[in-house]
């Protein structure tokens, strides 16, 4: 069985070791390119969102590489990606591909992981416990390295050092087969990143990304937003990390002590319960993170994403009360690189100036 999946951030880095350890062959699609989007735009409904099109392009390119089993991103959750799954399968069959498919939803990642695992192995979760632990270890390691990279990228003395290390790291991660390999991999590349020469004089501002996870994680779609921000001396964080989206023991959340309970408390004055997609988390996280010491927030969403548009509009009112500035960026297939850079530069200038003013206010006689 040749298993493939769409691109979602570093999914392609840590999913292959898991699939291989199940005794299957992993066939990741080629990295998302203009061609991927063109394929999606040709075959998907015209007015659907760009992530749907990109993901469809990924499926086609994976099947062209010989995959025969697809883990499809979507599932339930009142987002059109879930509705599209059926159409995407029909379309792929129309195009002449033969494959089996299993949906995977980020909304309910742990339950779906159990389902996907059952689908791939035909056995209950316990028999594949080793593989699951490998997957979770890989996710944590990869996320940890990415987080460190976000720190060094903003401070590196020579532009591009961090990304060179990351590129090597992702290639090395694909070769990991056991949890020991993962541990070695993590130690090696953490050390490599820590060895990147930093420029201590850079004036760093800290920004956190909220909104739609696909837009945050997909560097093709968001036009290397994190790299652009890093080059401007911005230390970026994200509200959503794939590694922490899988919580196999959600005991704390059941007891109302987990992070999600905090999000719910923050969102509840604005939104009466979940409305689909990640809108509820977006509202809650925006409010929590705007009070968490960051210099600014950037809300990312695909153009016309129904849940995120609702979240954005509900938060319009909060923008005036938020202690830090919030920038909304909507992406579609035509978003221009220069336009994005200009807006980011202007936003970062604004944040720097606010930071400088605040510092002045603290030392009036300086």
């Amino acid at each position, binding site marked *: 069985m040749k298993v493939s999946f769409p691109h979602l951030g570093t999914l392609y880095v840590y999913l292959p070791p898991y699939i291989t350890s199940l005794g299957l062959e992993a066939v990741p699609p080629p990295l998302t390119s203009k061609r991927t989007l063109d394929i999606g735009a040709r075959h998907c*409904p015209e*007015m659907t969102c760009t992530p749907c099109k990109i993901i469809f392009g990924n499926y086609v390119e994976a099947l062209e590489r010989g995959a025969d089993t697809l883990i499809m991103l979507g599932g339930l959750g009142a987002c059109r990606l879930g509705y599209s799954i059926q159409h995407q399968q029909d379309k792929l069959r129309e195009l002449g591909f033969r494959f089996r498919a299993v949906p995977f939803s980020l909304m309910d990642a742990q339950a779906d992981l159990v389902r996907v695992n059952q689908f791939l192995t035909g056995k209950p979760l316990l028999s594949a416990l080793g593989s699951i632990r490998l997957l979770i270890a890989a996710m944590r390691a990869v996320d940890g390295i990415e987080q460190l990279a976000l720190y060094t990228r903003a401070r590196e003395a020579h532009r591009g050092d961090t990304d060179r290390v990351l590129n090597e790291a992702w290639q090395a991660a694909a070769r990991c087969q056991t949890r020991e390999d993962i541990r070695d991999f993590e130690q090696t590349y953490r050390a490599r990143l820590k060895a990147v020469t930093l420029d201590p004089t850079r004036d760093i501002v800290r920004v956190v990304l909220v909104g739609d996870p696909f837009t945050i994680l997909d560097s093709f779609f968001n036009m290397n937003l994190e790299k652009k921000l890093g080059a401007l001396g911005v230390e970026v964080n994200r509200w959503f990390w794939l590694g922490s989206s899988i919580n196999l023991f959600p005991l704390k959340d059941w007891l109302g002590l987990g992070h999600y309970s905090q999000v719910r408390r923050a969102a509840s004055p604005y939104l009466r*319960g979940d409305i689909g997609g990640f809108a509820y988390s977006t509202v809650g996280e925006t409010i929590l993170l705007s009070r968490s010491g960051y210099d600014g927030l950037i809300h990312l969403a695909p153009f016309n994403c129904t849940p995120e548009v609702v979240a954005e*509009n509900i938060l*319009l009112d909060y923008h005036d009360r938020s202690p830090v500035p919030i920038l909304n960026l909507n992406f579609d297939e035509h978003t221009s690189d220069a336009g994005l850079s200009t807006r980011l530069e202007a936003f970062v200038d604004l944040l720097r100036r606010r930071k400088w003013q605040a510092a002045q206010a603290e030392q009036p006689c300086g």
Partner: protein
Amino acid sequence: MRIGIPRALFYYHYYPLWRAFFDALGATCVVSPPTHKGIVAQGAARVTGDNCLPLKVYLGHVLSLVGQVDYLFVPLIRTLESEAENCARLRGLPDLVRSLAPEAPPLLAPEINLQAGERQAAAAVLDLGRRFTLNPLRVKKAVDQALATHQAYQNMLSRGVPIPAALAHFDAHGSGRIGQSVRVESDPRPGVPPASVGSERPPLRVALVGHAYNLYDEYVNHRLIGRLCSLGVEVRTSEAVPPALAHESMAQAGVHRYWTYEHELVGAATYYLSQGEADGLISMVTFGCGPDSVMLESIQKLAARYGVPFLNLVFDEHTGEAGLVTRLEAFVDMLDRRPRRKDIS
């Protein structure tokens, strides 16, 4: 007590029900005026540009009621069946109104979530009724009356009475005449064109699928149905298919359920096409509607499967009338040149 009801979105589905409920509780319903340019402009000014037109229209209606009513009725209809949900905008409607129109009067926003069980919905309605009376039996009576009115409304639609005529009927008579046979004074079938004299061929029949709040908002759709009629076309609209039949057709078509209203539209299209009741299929959607953007795919496939010509019309607040007229005329001309479906069989 005056309750404001925006003439948008759910209004077209549930106004008779709401009206009967509030009448029975001694409240007065105030419906916002039909959509006009000012309403759309006011609504659109409040939201970010990528919102759908129906939401902008809804907000405009909300704003037009400010200062005229004591409460605004903005129900939160989350789910209506076990397997499908409502779109995120509908599920966030009261929250959107509260945040985008802060000057709006206090909201009455019962939460209807049938996936959570009927008991939850009953509790929400009781809670709503408590604002008017402390006697739960009176609320119960109001609910019964409302449901009977809704049934009467549904029956009227299934008999082919168009939504505007049916709504006008309930608006004029309230719920006072439930049980008596309902007679509509206006022409019951304005969807039927005047008989074309001297032509031997039967008139063209076109199935028109779209959300009721789009099809019957004449400002939004530039009198689409009227224009089709004046081109000599018999229009069959999606809501005239009784939901039970539409669902049956859906099950046959094998399309999976995800969104309630989209499901009904695809069901209606399947019904008309499989019964051979349509020479052409027109879908009407608004730009930026997430569910519809994917639903169109199903409708397009259906049209292809049954070999019926298909026209999709996308509306936004800038839609030019001339472009619409040209497309409709071209489509009807094309249909007219094809053999009628009855002629083939």
